[in-house]
């Protein structure tokens, strides 16, 4: 048998290489060399990103079980960049005495979820897709419960794993019904066989639940706030950005590729989910006091906006989705980075603790302000452009009412994003948070995020490139 086609899976093999090198280094290196563990991990991962950022020709492995498309290089690179930023921000947390022994585990678990997402993205068969989905969610539960002695983390981990398994078993039941009604699991063969029989519609709804859960759209969002609050902040940011970004991409490719003939069924479903996600998450975000819960609801509503790109089902929708994910990675990671730095030094996580932050920590407040402006979609920043493209993708398919509701919700969201900015810049406080000196790695991540938030909107080649390549989806 010829195994050479497997070697074409560059991304997966190089990530696996990084994982194994780090695992062996963590186990066998002596104490003297172990203090270089994190810089080496970051450099290795950077090499991995650079090696795999150039799109290649379309190819298939193992008879179509794994299918590579050029757009996969982009989405994987964006997820890689986000993961790298999470690593930079987690540097300080992992260097503490209590966590130093566990940092190998942190990197290994994070990278294995990333490997699962790779397989999920490039899957050409429901088996590979399901394996990827589980590889992405089981180590994630271990990450959420990473802090063993923290009750909240254990509680969040239990909620996450039980609900994730529940959702994925519903999804699996859906896949079994798809198999029963068509007799194949290959994405390339399925579109011809899915004709819209009632059984197939039921199977699709069952199947989609698993992905909706991962994206945390509104009827399936109840885990999000608790898990986000309980997990360690760097892990929360990974969960909310990378895991969600890969899941929306996969949802789009599956809907357009496999379930294309059910478009009259899934468009109304997505319509309702988008309206519910955006509206309900916005209303709940207003009454949150805890910043991590606040960002949980904010990210649910962002997922609702991404649905606007998915619902269009066109190549424009695909490019606007990938672009939205890119911008969302930088904006959300900047916000989570600031929160994690402040939480680690002072333990303060509530919005009223941020009163007068500008007097003591002007730089952190500035980064936070930029990221919130970008999340809210204020014009000069990248978030505006990504929202604009998403709205125009939905409008181009005639979803004017949906775009109008989303626009109204942008105004509501502006209110609660500005509440934090008001707390930081205008509110006076007798006991503001003391001046914080963040470490070198966190500052690099802030610089990258700030630059990206300001620049991505203006550097049009980025969107053009994505757009060019997404027609080959």
């Amino acid at each position, binding site marked *: 048998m010829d195994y050479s086609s497997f070697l074409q899976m560059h991304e997966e093999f190089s990530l696996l290489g990084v994982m194994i090198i780090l695992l062996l280094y963590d186990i066998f290196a002596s104490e003297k060399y172990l203090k270089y563990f994190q810089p080496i991990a970051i450099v290795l991962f950077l090499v991995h990103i650079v090696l795999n950022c150039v799109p290649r020709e379309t190819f298939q492995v193992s008879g179509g079980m794994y299918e590579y498309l050029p757009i996969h290089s982009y989405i994987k690179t964006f997820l890689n960049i986000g993961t790298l930023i999470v690593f930079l921000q987690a540097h300080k947390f992992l260097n503490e005495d209590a966590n130093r022994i566990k940092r190998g585990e942190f990197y290994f678990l994070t990278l294995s979820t990333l490997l699962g997402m790779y397989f999920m993205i490039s899957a050409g068969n429901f088996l590979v897709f399901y394996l990827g989905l589980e590889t992405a969610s089981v180590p994630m539960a271990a990450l959420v419960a990473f802090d063993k002695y923290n*009750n*909240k983390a254990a*509680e969040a981990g239990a909620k996450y794993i039980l609900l994730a*398994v529940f959702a994925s078993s519903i999804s*699996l039941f859906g896949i079994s019904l798809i*198999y029963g009604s068509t007799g194949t699991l290959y994405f390339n063969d399925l579109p011809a066989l899915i004709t819209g029989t009632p059984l197939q519609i039921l199977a699709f709804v069952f199947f989609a639940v698993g992905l909706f859960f991962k994206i945390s759209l509104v009827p399936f969002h109840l885990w999000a706030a608790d898990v986000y609050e309980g997990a360690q902040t760097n892990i929360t940011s990974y969960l909310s950005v990378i895991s969600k970004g890969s899941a929306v991409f996969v949802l789009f490719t599956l809907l357009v590729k496999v379930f294309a003939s059910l478009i009259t069924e899934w468009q109304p479903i997505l319509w309702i989910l988008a309206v519910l996600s955006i509206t309900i998450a916005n209303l709940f975000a207003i009454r949150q006091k805890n910043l991590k819960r606040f960002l949980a609801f904010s990210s649910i509503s962002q997922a609702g906006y991404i649905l606007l790109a998915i619902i269009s089902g066109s190549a424009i929708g695909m490019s606007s989705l990938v672009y939205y994910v890119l911008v969302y990675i930088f904006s959300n990671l900047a916000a989570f980075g600031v929160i994690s730095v402040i939480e680690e030094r002072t333990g303060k996580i509530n919005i009223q603790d941020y009163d007068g932050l500008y007097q003591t920590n002007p730089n952190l407040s500035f980064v936070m302000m930029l990221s919130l402006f970008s999340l809210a979609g204020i014009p000069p920043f990248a978030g505006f452009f990504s929202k604009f493209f998403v709205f125009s993708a939905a409008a181009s398919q005639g979803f004017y009412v949906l775009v109008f509701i989303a626009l109204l919700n942008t105004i509501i969201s502006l209110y609660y994003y500005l509440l934090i900015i008001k707390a930081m810049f205008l509110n006076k406080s007798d006991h503001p948070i003391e001046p914080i000196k963040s470490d070198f790695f966190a500052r690099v991540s802030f610089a990258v995020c700030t630059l990206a938030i300001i620049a991505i909107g203006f550097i049009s080649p980025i969107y053009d490139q994505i757009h060019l390549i997404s027609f080959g989806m």
Partner: protein
Amino acid sequence: MGDILTNFFTGTVPIEAYLGLSLIMFFCGVYGFLTRKNMLMILISVELMLNAADINFAVFNRYLYPGQLEGFYFSLFTIAIAACETAVAIAIIINIYRNLKSVEVDNLNQMKE
């Protein structure tokens, strides 16, 4: 009743019987997941749901598409994955037991708003 037993031993059980079994198992799992208060029982309910899907795969493959092996392989992989999920879930539940001395979900209420 006698017919079903004869069918069972002569190997001609209708596919509907198997599908009915898997459907009942699946919704027993859903019901258990929603009503049970003990985390281990919740985990068992979820396992019921996963196994119901496995039965579906095997039965569809055997009865509808006898020429191929996709369904059987899928069930094999699913069994392995279910074991991984159970291992991680039980590890987390043990950790909760160490912290709270209980595995009832009613005690998991530290983050209520």
